[in-house]
């Protein structure tokens, strides 16, 4: 692994200037490395973070990766990691014009990482540095506890998809009503505890606002001193409200870290460090896994736009067109996230340019008028920058995959069935409806099950978990060993309430059945409720 040479770095800096002029925003510093194929194979299990902690599962993936590479050699053009400074990895020996294209693609990824609000919790730290500290910590623990460190890593990783990514994000981006004193007083205390009439509450809000505008420094203190004199219980109630709301938001892995009787034993406290490292790594990667389509779409959109405006590459347009098409063409069969992401962003730009992202347009019912609608207000770029700031894969697909989009690009859902007469497997057009296509896309997105701790029932001997059923049952083959790991970390039994889909073979009807899984004495039992 080595830094790109000065010549290539200059190309990158040139790309940065042009990208910033076009409206992309990113830190000026970045590091670009040339890596070998063997580096890439070794980095992939570590999600491209070179300083990630060691774990034996990664070693297995590396051995596998090397064998696979011998059979099916393939190389990505680039990989970027969301670090400070942003680091990107490249394959050796790209011609300059191709580097220009790749650099624009990378810069758009960096812009996405540094501006999309799903990533807001990653903005204040450099994960590469943090991972190195974690790696050292884990290596140090291995000197004391040997292979048991790896068991704790393994069992913590078995629940690392249950981290409360969205609740942590929500706390930062949109604190709940009642999280601050004023919010709690007007919205909850006045209305629920004091049961005041609305007009009295409004009057008080008016008083509060007046006080604050007249005394910006001490207005708030004055107001609440007065309130606490009148209602001495207010301070206590506010604290209680904050405390109870906090405890509701711990995810399974946090709960185990903080409350497990096994981890709380003096001789086991070192395990908490590991549990926490695994949790934080998982939270860090959570936004990335939820923005694959939009992020690739965004990067493809900008590499195309900026490359074609770049004066340094004239003469290579045909070669560029060929590579660009291979990256961004919609597959005849199969899903290409680059292609769908790019088409959706182009779609939104067009909708914005024609003024179709407005209430005025929504109110029009005539098909003819809708198809001709164009205010020519050229707000397309604003619209896609709004997407880049606020949208994820789910919201992008859910908002913009409609029949117009599906028909425009001849998209379809392909099914696979057996033709017994011809003894073949047939691929056929199953549906061209937007709803089916959208569901197929949404189904392919990362969506871990929602599982939480039943804090009321849980005790030192047993951890109770509740799975919030969303129409999909849990994968049965993984339940036992996952619960075994949780049982180890809790130091007791584990119960999981979930639902399963039952099928009546004769008439094809399906129904859901509530079941409870119990992991006790190294055995898993299932009981229908």
């Amino acid at each position, binding site marked *: 692994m*080595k830094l790109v040479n000065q010549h290539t770095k200059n190309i990158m800096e040139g790309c940065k200037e042009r990208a910033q002029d076009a409206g992309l925003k990113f830190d000026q510093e970045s590091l670009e490395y040339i890596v070998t194929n*063997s*580096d890439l194979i*070794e980095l992939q299990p*570590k999600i491209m973070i*070179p*300083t990630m902690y*060691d774990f034996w599962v990664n*070693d*297995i993936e*590396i*051995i596998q990766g090397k*064998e696979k590479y011998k*059979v099916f050699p393939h190389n990505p053009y680039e990989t970027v990691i969301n670090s400070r400074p942003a680091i990107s990895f490249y394959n050796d020996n790209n011609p300059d014009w191709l580097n220009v294209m790749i650099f624009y693609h990378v810069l758009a990824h960096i812009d996405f990482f540094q501006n999309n609000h799903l990533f807001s919790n990653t903005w204040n730290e450099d994960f590469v540095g943090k991972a*190195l500290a974690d*790696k050292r910590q884990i*290596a140090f623990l*291995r*000197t004391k506890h040997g292979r048991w460190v*790896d*068991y704790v890593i393994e069992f913590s*990783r*078995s*629940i690392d*998809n249950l981290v409360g990514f969205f609740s942590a994000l929500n706390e930062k981006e949109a604190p709940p009503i009642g999280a601050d004193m004023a919010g709690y007083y007007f919205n909850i205390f006045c209305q629920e505890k004091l049961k005041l009439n609305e007009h009295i509450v409004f009057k008080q809000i008016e008083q509060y606002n007046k006080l604050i505008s007249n005394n910006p420094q001490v207005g708030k203190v004055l107001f609440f001193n007065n309130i606490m004199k009148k209602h001495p219980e207010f301070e206590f109630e506010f604290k209680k409200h904050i405390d109870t709301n906090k405890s509701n938001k711990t995810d399974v892995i946090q709960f185990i870290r903080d409350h497990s009787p096994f981890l709380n034993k003096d001789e086991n406290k070192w395990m908490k460090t590991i549990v926490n490292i695994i949790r934080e790594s998982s939270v860090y990667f959570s936004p990335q896994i939820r923005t694959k389509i939009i992020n690739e779409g965004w990067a493809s959109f900008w590499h195309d736009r900026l490359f074609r405006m770049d004066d340094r590459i004239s003469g290579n347009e045909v070669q560029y067109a060929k590579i660009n098409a291979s990256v961004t063409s919609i*597959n*005849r*069969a199969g*899903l290409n996230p680059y292609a769908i992401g790019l088409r959706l962003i182009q779609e939104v730009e067009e909708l914005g340019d024609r003024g179709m992202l407005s209430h005025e347009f929504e109110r029009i019912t005539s098909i003819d008028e809708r198809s001709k609608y164009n205010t020519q207000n050229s707000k397309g770029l604003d619209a896609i920058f709004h997407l880049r700031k606020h949208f994820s894969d789910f919201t992008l697909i859910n908002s913009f995959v409609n029949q117009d989009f599906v028909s425009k690009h*001849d*998209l*379809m*859902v*392909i*099914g*696979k069935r*057996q*033709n017994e007469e011809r*003894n*073949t*497997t*047939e*691929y*056929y*057009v*199953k549906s*061209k409806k937007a709803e089916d296509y959208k569901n*197929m896309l949404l189904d392919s997105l990362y*969506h871990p*099950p929602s599982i939480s701790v039943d804090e009321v029932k849980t005790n030192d001997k047993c951890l109770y978990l509740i799975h919030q059923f969303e*129409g*999909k*049952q849990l994968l*049965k*083959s*993984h339940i036992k060993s*996952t619960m075994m*790991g949780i049982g180890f970390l809790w130091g007791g039994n584990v119960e999981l309430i979930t639902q399963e*889909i039952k*099928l009546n073979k004769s008439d094809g009807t399906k129904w859901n059945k509530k079941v409870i899984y119990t992991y006790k004495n190294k055995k898993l039992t299932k009981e229908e409720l």
Partner: protein
Amino acid sequence: MKGGRRKNIDRLDGEKTYLRIEELFLHNSSESSYVSLQTLDELMARDNQREEDGFERKIKLGKIVRPGKNGSDEIIIVPSTIETKFYHDNAPNNEEEEFGGTGTEEEGSVIGEKSNNPKNEDGSGKGPGEGSEKGHDLNSDAYNLGKVLTEYFNLPRLKQKGIKKSISQYNYELTDLNKGFGQLIDKKQTLKRIIKTNILLNNIPEKTKPDLSSLIHSPQDTVYKILSREISYETEAIVFFVRDYSGSMQGSPSEAVLTQHLFLYSWLMYHYDKRVKTRFILHDTQAIEAEDFSTYYRSNVAGGTKIFPAFELVNSIIENEQLHLSKNIYVFYGSDGDDWKDNKNNLVGEIKKLSKYANRIGIFVARNSGNDNPTSLESTIEESNILSELNDILKITQINSRDFTESQIIESIKLFLRV
């Protein structure tokens, strides 16, 4: 792996842990080692240790098919592991696999098809039913897999009682080549060598017709065929692999049965050093014989299910070739347990007949998803009472194909081979 690499950290004992390598990375050095890789042996040792620590083993054997030259594929065995987590299971909601695509065809139209018969097509893939077929020889790879299985899974070795030791015979054949002396001159090889020598001596100028009379003939260039001793094995055991490949077997049941049969086959190949003969039978409503393990392994799902024709075919092969007189016969059958109800008596009759010839019949039922009740095959066997009647010969074992593990497969093989 370079020796220097592992110095950073020994993960089991955890000695010396200063991670200078990462610091090198951060200082932009050209050093590129940021992993402290463990070898496969170390990983396997770790896996053995798990059992002692009270946890299940985690390392499985994965397979990659490497498309080879001349159409012959190679199977590479790699370690693999799955990190278990709570995941959603999409299978019960969608009976049919679906994915995205683009095209102008109308709904319902077929846009492509793939033959279920691997003989007619080329392709690559990693699972049964996919991949190219031509001249594929699984034997050498199966041999390696068998070695790994025996070493890591502690399969019981079949007792002498089960399969008689083979008698080795030697034949002398004129197959080896020798320079200088021998029984018969190999004219073609000799001529080739003479030309080679003369090219080296610059006796044959480029682009002109060589003058044959001026060619120098060294005695060492004469190549002879020479008598050589060849070992011929006399096979004493014959193993029939029989499986259902009907429509209902698609997906996990096929995978379970094939994994079991691949393991059994590999283990036999390793243990008996290729001295066991194998025959392969596939059936849906009719039974056919597949010519080799590769075809057997790769043939895909077809129509409905009748089990008895498969056993009928095995019986007729044995009778026609009078195999039972000279060989120990083993039959391993795999299916999802679905069968036409009216065939009960036929099936029981065929199994009884087979039991007179066979030393062991192992029936493996990979139950289809969501079905905990006994399958029709199991109930037929249960009701007919042949299991207790033929308890020395007939063994039956079942798993749920949806969530089967490699260790269940190993257990089922152990049951089949128990003496």
